[in-house]
């Protein structure tokens, strides 16, 4: 069968994974048009895309590069805030929703990638547990810095403060966009399921192609035997930074999708703290390290379980704790 369609094993496998996503999209769209999807499921579609993108992008660092990163929620936070800030700022200037969202998407991804590189360069001298601890700390720092940022705009331009909103000294008619711990409110809700699925497909195609390329082979060789890889002349730092940046960029994309789904965005320990990073890691571990399709399915199943077990009241929390601790 593989021979007949003239593909090698991994391409065939990848096509199936993409096929599953497209099939799921078509089935859900048909069900929505016939009105047989519950409001809960409809509301969960975009978050599911967010978690799938997060799981796939973390799989690149954890599964392919083999380094334990616990700062993934931090990169998501950067992407979410950068893009939501842009969308709030230009809400009146750019009225074409898709154009604005596209620019927001690029801004979110680029900002997260820059943070990925900033963090990767000093941290990647570390290995194993030490790397995990440092990335965890960086994720927490990002969240805490966002929580003390006050940014507003008025007729004279953009004002910034790390103290409080009164310190911005905004002119009459000024608007505080990032209100410290209160985050950003009134973000235009530009995300939808179709955009989410397109982004999932883009993430998958990019990650799959990286794995298959010479870059991917270099990255896996670092994972399997660092010394051997070094001895054949692979620049370890370069490939680690590349992987970290790409992984962070897609976490940023997930953040953009997340921040444009709800009208309020705050950086709480719950959504951008280390608990979230660990939850994403659980998706990857449960789905299988380096297995794109597995992490996708794990993300979907683990997000749906607590919602569909609402009838069990408090007991439904048990499965998550088991996963996280």
């Amino acid at each position, binding site marked *: 069968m593989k021979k007949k369609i003239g593909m090698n094993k991994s391409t065939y496998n990848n096509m*199936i994974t993409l096929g599953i996503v497209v099939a799921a999209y078509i089935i859900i769209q048909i069900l929505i048009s016939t009105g047989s999807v519950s*409001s809960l499921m409809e*509301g969960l579609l975009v*978050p599911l895309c967010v978690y799938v993108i997060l799981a796939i992008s973390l799989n690149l660092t954890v599964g392919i590069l083999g380094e334990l990163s616990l700062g993934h929620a931090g990169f998501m936070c950067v992407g979410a805030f950068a893009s939501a800030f842009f969308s709030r700022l230009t809400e009146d200037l750019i009225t074409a929703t898709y154009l604005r969202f596209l620019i927001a998407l690029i801004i979110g991804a680029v900002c997260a990638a820059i943070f990925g590189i900033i963090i990767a360069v000093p941290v990647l001298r570390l290995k194993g547990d030490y790397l995990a601890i440092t990335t965890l700390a960086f994720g927490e720092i990002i969240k*805490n810095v966002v929580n003390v940022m006050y940014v507003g705009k008025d007729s004279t331009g953009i004002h910034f403060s790390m103290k409080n909103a009164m310190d911005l000294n905004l002119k009459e008619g000024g608007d505080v966009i990032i209100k410290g711990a209160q985050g950003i409110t009134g973000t235009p809700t530009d995300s939808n399921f179709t955009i989410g699925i397109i982004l999932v497909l883009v993430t998958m195609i990019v990650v799959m192609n990286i794995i298959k390329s010479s870059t991917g082979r270099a990255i896996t060789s670092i994972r399997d035997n660092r010394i051997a890889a070094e001895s054949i002349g692979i620049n370890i730092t370069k490939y680690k930074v590349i992987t970290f940046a790409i992984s962070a960029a897609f976490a940023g994309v997930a953040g953009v999708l997340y921040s444009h789904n709800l009208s309020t965005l705050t950086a709480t320990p719950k959504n951008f703290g280390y608990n979230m990073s660990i939850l994403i890691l659980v998706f990857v571990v449960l789905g299988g390290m380096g297995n794109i399709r597995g992490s996708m399915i794990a993300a979907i199943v683990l997000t749906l379980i607590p919602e569909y077990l*609402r009838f069990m009241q*408090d007991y439904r929390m048990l499965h998550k704790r088991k996963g996280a601790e």
Partner: protein
Amino acid sequence: MKRILGLILVLVMAMSVVAGCGGSGNDTETTGSSTASDKFYIGGIGPITGAAAIYGQGVKNGAQIAVDEINAAGGINGYQIEYKFEDDEHDAEKAVNAYNTLKDWGMQILMGTVTSTPCMAVSAKTAEDNMFQVTPSGSSPDVIVGDNTFQICFSDPNQGIASADYIAENALATKVAVIYDSSDVYSSGIYEKFASQAESKGIEIVAAEAFTADNKSDFSVQIQKAKDAGAELVFLPIYYTEATLILKQANSIGYKPLFFGCDGLDGILGVENFDTSLAEGVMLLTPFAADATDKLTQDFVATYKENYGEVPNQFAADAYDAIYTIKAAIEKSGATPDMSVSELGDALKGAMPEIAVVGLTGKGAEMTWAATGEVSKKPMAVTIKNGVYTAN
């Protein structure tokens, strides 16, 4: 062959998940439409697990008491109430999921959510559906941007202003220190307004010390700074968990100023392993005191104790009032359960500015609402004396 078998299994699994969702959607829709015509479906959302669980529990139980009372007395205009409460874990995303779950159940009116951040996300959704929403305790002013959302509690800015006014009018202190949580919407919201109002009232803020959600077990630095600055009163616009630690640590260094808080301190006496004698003399601005002598409060407290074995907090009282407010709005507008969600929303939000409700949280006076959703009622300060909240 193995691979193909595996693929088929995956596909079957994926299909069953989707089909399962579709199926459950169908079920709830049919049950919703077949019974919707003779009952009002009121949903509630709040945190009943996690860090803010005590508030969600209070709201859940307080509303349940009101619903039971109304149903026993023959319902609203003869229609019974169906009431269901969903958990949001104090998280915006989960709150929206809870909202969608309740919509599948057939909810027509929302009593929630309990905390501000989730409430902002949910009120954007109710505004889309034009569903009538009453929040018992979502106190941020951003909660009521939609014209379909109404508050039972004071908004955060109003709490800050009322606190500064109360301190100035009763001449409690001129030198004030503030310890607040800069990572929390509620706390920083109150602090900002308090600071600007205090200035105009001649109160000097000698120390304003912040902490964050990640760093809230050791307050010795903040307390020491307040002490060194010579503050006579420490204003705590925070939640009670941290307040107990502050009281304990202030006591251990022998610093005994007057402590003053807002409704977040309500519940401080119920904290396990907390020496309540440390809270002696703490003042808090809260709309509800469980030891008030009016019959309404006493009956409510007695029923609550009997059913749930605890003294109700302010959140339970807010929820109780929220249900009675919904009842008053329905009676005023003459709405019936066979109306659609959006028709009910239009009818009830039109009735809200016209009604006046006497409840547990208005100090016996009437509560009224502006069309914007803000409540107008009397603030009340209580002091902790001999281990109970005593109205001033």
